């Protein structure tokens, strides 16, 4: 995927992320989940991918199980809890919600791998150095903050502080560590922005070291992604492909259901398809060595 133009990679990601977020469709949520899972397996080491997918599946399961506890709508009670019905419709709605959220999380995680910090600076640095700076520093800040919280928390534990097991102790411990890490993070961010400035950031219109030219494959990929994106949105909006869960589960009918499903499937599996093709090609090329 790195051979594609960064704008194309970003666009391809948006073309699957947006319909996942806004189409209320169990089919779309499930297909997007599967597409993201396949891409994760193709892009990340198997262990890391399996961990992320397990986490996403856990979120889905939690949403599925918990939703009927709070929503009692629907006409098919499966059993009663505290005299309130636990309905099939709420269960399926919970699954739809969970799959969408999990799919979005996985696509965003893939985005971090597909589009580097340098790509972000390339895409936005020319138009708005400040915006690019904010994006790049925010994305860099969160993992650094997490790491620092770990360091400070170990430092406190190692000197006998807050090692009690009461909840009040833990709360005080957490609050103290977080505020110290946040202060460090603010200091560090200020230093990083001074360093960027000192290295000429904003001195002249930014160029890019990596030659990013739009090639034929970029145009083909972006056309395919945009066409599928448009098809998905148009079919969804004009042929009413939204699922209704209450009072009864009613999947959308009509002659546009199949084209919508086909378009969404192709859209969600475009990135995994490219990744799989690259992997096969790599296997083929290395087999000749």
């Amino acid at each position, binding site marked *: 995927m790195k051979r594609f133009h960064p704008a194309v990679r970003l666009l391809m990601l948006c073309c699957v992320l947006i319909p996942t977020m806004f189409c209320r469709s169990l089919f779309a949520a499930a297909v997007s989940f599967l597409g993201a899972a396949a891409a994760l397996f193709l892009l990340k*080491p198997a*262990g890391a991918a399996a961990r992320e997918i397990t986490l996403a599946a856990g979120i889905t399961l939690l949403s599925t199980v918990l939703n009927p506890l709070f929503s009692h709508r629907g006409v098919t009670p499966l059993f009663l809890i505290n005299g309130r019905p636990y309905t099939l419709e709420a269960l399926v709605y919970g699954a739809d919600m969970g799959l969408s959220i999990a799919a979005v999380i996985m696509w965003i995680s893939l985005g971090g791998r597909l589009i*580097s*910090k*340098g790509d972000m*600076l*390339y895409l936005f*640095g020319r138009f708005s150095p400040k915006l690019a700076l904010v994006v*790049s520093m925010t994305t*860099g800040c969160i993992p650094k903050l997490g790491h*620092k919280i770990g*360091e*400070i928390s*170990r*430092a*406190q*534990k*190692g*000197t*006998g*502080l*807050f*090692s*009690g*097991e009461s909840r009040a*102790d833990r709360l*005080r411990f957490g609050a*103290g*560590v977080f*505020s*110290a890490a946040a*202060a*460090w993070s603010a*200091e*560090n961010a200020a*230093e*990083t922005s*001074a*360093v*960027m*400035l*000192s*290295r*000429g*950031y*904003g*001195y*002249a*219109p*930014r*160029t*890019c*070291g*990596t*030659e990013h030219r739009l090639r034929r494959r970029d145009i083909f990929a972006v056309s395919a992604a945009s066409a599928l994106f448009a098809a998905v949105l148009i079919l969804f909006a004009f042929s009413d492909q939204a699922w209704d869960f209450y009072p009864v589960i009613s999947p959308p009918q009509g002659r546009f259901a199949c084209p919508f499903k086909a378009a969404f499937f192709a859209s969600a599996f475009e990135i995994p398809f490219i990744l799989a093709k690259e992997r096969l090609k790599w296997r083929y090329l290395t087999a000749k060595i």
Partner: protein
Amino acid sequence: MEILNCKDLSFTYNGSTERVLKDINFSVQKGELILIQGGSGCGKTTLLKALKPELSPLGKYCGEIFLEGKRLGKSTKTPQTGFLMQNTDSQTVCSSVYEELCFGGENLGFDSAKINRRIGETVSYFGIGHLLHREISTLSGGEKQLVALCSVMVTDPGILILDEPVSRLDPVAAEELAAVILRINRELGTTVIVAEHFAEGFFYGCDRVMLMDNGSIADFAPPKKCAAENPGFKYLFPCSVRILPENAQVLDIPLTVREGRKFLSENYSPAEIPQDAEKLSDESVLECRDLWFRYSRSSPDILAGADLTLHRGEIFTAVGANGAGKSTLLKCLGGLLSPYSGKTKVMGKPLKSYKSGELYRECISVLPQDPYDMFIRQTVRDDYRYALSAMGRDLSYADEIGERLGISRLMDRHPYDLSGGEAQLCAIGKALLSQPKILLLDEPVKGLDLRWISEVGKLLLELKAAGISVLCVSHDLEFAAEYSDRCGLFFDGRIISAAPPGEFFSDSSIYTTPASRIARRFFRGAVTAGQISAEIARQEADR
């Protein structure tokens, strides 16, 4: 030809009345290499930042700075000045080495072909081709510093300013990077201004040394002249100068190990230095056997069969390269990480048998590498009191510790306003609040100058006299040689040899102190500058 000129420069931080820089006057010629030296907090970093307006701190400036004849203002952009910060983690901006190398050129509007040509040249010249496609976060300290330096050099700066580029690296990496910086000056003709405590790497190779004291320039002269005329600053100079007797009238001051050896052999006779190793207590307070640790199932072993015994009242220092796993060993021994195999006993009891918190109350204290991580409140006193109240102890103990450690004057300061040395002393003070019997210190003298190193060392000796056992991991060999009862080399996941410093360092030829290199086969067994100068004084007295 003059490249930089500073006239009557003074600086006061916002909200303060004390001048951090006082009437600084100097000029630098094109192609010169200037070494700035001075104790912690003398104004070196402030001066360097003042030379790069993009980094200059907020405050009141008086005086003028001219760079290539142009007067620098607050908003002047100086892309021709390359600057390398003390903290490499703030210096690097991108996630991969290649992107980092591109960053400067991209900012200056170079086209892609020019950027890649510059990267190609720089990478080949500095020999970092193997790092080009690595992620920055996976690099070792030395590699990170080298990449940061290369990313500055890609833009071909006319003047390079470096703020303590090597003081946080292990001795081997420090020597390598110092050699690269000297090469930049010699072979590329770049003007270099470097502030650094690691005198061994730069003192002999620089054109002039600027000695700073309390915000003023105490001297600005070629190295030999500077060393001869400023005995009060001896602690800043390389070991070959520090071994010279007080009030010595030496015509040709030795600046390198080779010159130091020549000086000894021409003026003194060979001697055997007696080793006054104390007998260690038989009681072991901390003991580990066959520790194995890795951070994840698929990652390599960081500890691979590590064994260690720490005796009561002993100072043991484990030395080794950056990233070798010394800190991991310390965290495992302190119960902050769990090895997947092996046994650890603390005060005779298995580590695992200590319940949560019990281990750290009156037993062990672990100090992290970054002393600032120890503080979570607004002032040191507040932090101490907060910790004491959390531990259910008497709050007045905070002031008692402050007095005992001589840090009472720092008690009302914000921890982030303390210098590295001050923060280290305050962090040790905090670790002592729980009245531990064992102190585990991770790089306690990293980035400190010799004066602060001796402050920390003295404190450790006092703690030792009070019966506290200290385990340090450090890459500072002189500190290890001066203050430890035993030293061990951490290599390949374990401590491969442990012995008293005299034996340990005089047996090693590369991983050893500069003093040991100078005294080798002449003053047998001497491993510190103090031992050599004491032997010189003895021979002088016999004459």
